[in-house]
C-alpha cells in the first residue's frame, strides 16, 4: 500500500529529475559511437580470422581501430592488445609480466588504492610466491615517492600505480614515478657494468611500469612516452563506449604471457574471436573523448568546483575526500558524519539521483572502501561516503537539483540516526 503511495508521490512531484551522477561507474554509449558500431553487429559480422571478404572486412576494421588507439597513445599498432575489459587488461598486465619475468625477480610494487583488478591480481601472485609491496598514500591519496624509491630492489620486476583513482579521483604523478623507475634502471645497469656484486642480472630494463588509466581517459594525456609508462590499461565503459572491451598497451621491448590461450588472435596474447563491433566502438569512443578532452574537462571542473563549494557550505559535518585540485574534473567524494552511505544512495535514488558509496554495506566483505581507509579516513566516515561523478550530460541545473535534495536527505537520515552530532 505504502509502496503504491510512494510511487504516486514520485509521479505527482513535477520537480523530480533524473540525474545520473555515477559516470565513473559507467557511461552510456555516445550515439556517434553506436552509429559506427551498428554495421559490425549486423552485416559486417564476419570472423576476422576468415579468409573471405566478410572476414577480411572485420580484420580491416579491427586493425584500423588498433591504429587509431595507438595514435592516441603515441604508440605503434603492435603494442595495442584488445581485451574484454579494463579488469582483464589489468590482470593481463600484472600476471602477464610477473609470469614473463619470474626468472628475473619476484617482487611487485602496487599502491594501496589500486582498483581491485590490480590488487587482487597482486594478491593472487602473492599466493604463488611473489613478494608484493603495497605503497601507502598520504591523506589526500597521493603515493609517497620516497616510499617507492625505498621499495625498489633488485628483485622488483613490476610497479603498478593507477593514473587516476576511481573513487576519489586523485591523480598520481605518473611521470615522476616513471622518472624514479628509469633512474633506478640506469643505476642497476651501471652496477651491472661495473660488475658490482648482487646487482640485477637483467640489463637494467626492469622493473616494468604499468598504469591503470581507465578513469584518466578523456581527461588526461595518454601519450605513453610523455608518461614514461611501459604498460597502460584502458576500457570502453568509462569513455562513452561499449562495455566489455578494453585494451592494454605493452611497450614492444617487453614480453608478456597471455591469460587466455587458444587461437592466435591479438598476436597470440589474447585468444578468442575478436568482437569487431566492440573494438570499433572502443576506438571511436577513445577518439571522441580525446577530441572533446580540453573543453569537456574545463566544463566539468567548473561544475565540480561549484558543487563542492556549495555543498560544504550547505551541509554541516561534511568533508571532501581526496586532493581538492589534483583530482579528476568530474569527481566529487564526500563524507557525512552520522549517516551510512547505502541509505543515502537509496534515498537519493528515490529522488532520481544515481550515486555511489564506499560504505561496507555495498560490499560483500562488509569492510568499507579500501581507498578511503588508505587515506586515513576513519571507518565511520568511510561508511558515510558518497561519490558523485559528473559526465557529458551533467548540467548546472542537475547539480542545483542535487544541492536542493541532498542536504534534505542527509538531514532526514541524521534525524533518525543513533549517532547524534
Amino acid at each position: 500500500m505504502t509502496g503504491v503511495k510512494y510511487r504516486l508521490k514520485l509521479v505527482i512531484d513535477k520537480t523530480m529529475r533524473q540525474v545520473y551522477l555515477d559516470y565513473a561507474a559507467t557511461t552510456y554509449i555516445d550515439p556517434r559511437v553506436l552509429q559506427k558500431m551498428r554495421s559490425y553487429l549486423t552485416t559486417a559480422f564476419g570472423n576476422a580470422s576468415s579468409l573471405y571478404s566478410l572476414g577480411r572486412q572485420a580484420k580491416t576494421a579491427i586493425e584500423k581501430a588498433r591504429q587509431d588507439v595507438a595514435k592516441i597513445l603515441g604508440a605503434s599498432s603492435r603494442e595495442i592488445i584488445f581485451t574484454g575489459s579494463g579488469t582483464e587488461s589489468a590482470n593481463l598486465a600484472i600476471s602477464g609480466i610477473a609470469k614473463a619475468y619470474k626468472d628475473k625477480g619476484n617482487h611487485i610494487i602496487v599502491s594501496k588504492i589500486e582498483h581491485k583488478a590490480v590488487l587482487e591480481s597482486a594478491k593472487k601472485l602473492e599466493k604463488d610466491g611473489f613478494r608484493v609491496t603495497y605503497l601507502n598514500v598520504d591523506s589526500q591519496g597521493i603515493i609517497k615517492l620516497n616510499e617507492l624509491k625505498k621499495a625498489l630492489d633488485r628483485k622488483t620486476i613490476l610497479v603498478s600505480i593507477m593514473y587516476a583513482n576511481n573513487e576519489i579521483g586523485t591523480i598520481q604523478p605518473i611521470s615522476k614515478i616513471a622518472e624514479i623507475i628509469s633512474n633506478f634502471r640506469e643505476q642497476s645497469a651501471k652496477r651491472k657494468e661495473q660488475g658490482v656484486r648482487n646487482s640485477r642480472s637483467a640489463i637494467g630494463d626492469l622493473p616494468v611500469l604499468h598504469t591503470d588509466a581507465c578513469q584518466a581517459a578523456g581527461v588526461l594525456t595518454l601519450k605513453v612516452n610523455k608518461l614514461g609508462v611501459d604498460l597502460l590499461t584502458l576500457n570502453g565503459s568509462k569513455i562513452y563506449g561499449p562495455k566489455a572491451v578494453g585494451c592494454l598497451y605493452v611497450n614492444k621491448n617487453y614480453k608478456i604471457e597471455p591469460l587466455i590461450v587458444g587461437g592466435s588472435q591479438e598476436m597470440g596474447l589474447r585468444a578468442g574471436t575478436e568482437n569487431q563491433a566492440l573494438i570499433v566502438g572502443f576506438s571511436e569512443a577513445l577518439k571522441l573523448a580525446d577530441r572533446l578532452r580540453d573543453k569537456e574537462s574545463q566544463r566539468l571542473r567548473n561544475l565540480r568546483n561549484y558543487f563542492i563549494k556549495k555543498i560544504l557550505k550547505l551541509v554541516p559535518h561534511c568533508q571532501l575526500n581526496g586532493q581538492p585540485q589534483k583530482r579528476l574534473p568530474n569527481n566529487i567524494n564526500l563524507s557525512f558524519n552520522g549517516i551510512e552511505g547505502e541509505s543515502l544512495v537509496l534515498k537519493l535514488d528515490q529522488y532520481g539521483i544515481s550515486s555511489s558509496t564506499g560504505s561496507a554495506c555495498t560490499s560483500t566483505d562488509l569492510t568499507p572502501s579500501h581507498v578511503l581507509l588508505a587515506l586515513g579516513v576513519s571507518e565511520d566516515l568511510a561508511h558515510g561516503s558518497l561519490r558523485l561523478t559528473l559526465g557529458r550530460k551533467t548540467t548546472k541545473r542537475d547539480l542545483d537539483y542535487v544541492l536542493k535534495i541532498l542536504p534534505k536527505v542527509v538531514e532526514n537520515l541524521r534525524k533518525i540516526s543513533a549517532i547524534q552530532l
Partner: protein
Amino acid sequence: MKKKKNKKIKGDVIDVRKGEESWLYSKIVKDHFFNPRNVLLDERNYQYDGKGIAGNPLCGDMMALWIKVDPKTQKTKDCKWRTYGCASAIAATSMLSVMVTEKGGMPLKKALNLKAQQIIERLGGLPELKFHCSVLGLSALKEAINDYLKKQGKAKF
C-alpha cells in the same frame, strides 16, 4: 520508419522508474526504510523505562532503542528507536519496534526471547549479508529490557 524501430527497442528495456525492477530488498523492507515507524526524534521529553544501545559506528551500524513498560502486565507498551546504518538496518529496527508494540504490547519474557529469524521473516526476508542488522536491533532491545529490570531492582531474565 527508423524512429519507430527505436521506440520498439526502448520498450524492451526495463524501466526502473515504473517499478518494474526488483528493489534491492523486499517490499516490506522498502516500506519501513522510507516510512520508518516509531522513530524517536528527540528523547529529551520522552519518559522511558529502559534504554539500550547496540552496534558501533565503525562497523557501519548502530542502534539506540527506548522502551516503556506497563508495570501491571509487564508488557512493552511503547518502543522508540534511532538507527545509524543501511536500509536493512533501519527497516529491521522499525519492524522490531512494530513487533513489540502491536496487539497491546509484548510480554518482556517473550521480547527477550525474540529471534532474529522472526524479524527477518516479518521483513519478507533479508540478504544473508544483512542478517546481522536484525540481530543488532535485538541486542539493543535486550539491553533496554535489562536496563528496565535493573531499575526495578529485578534480576535479569
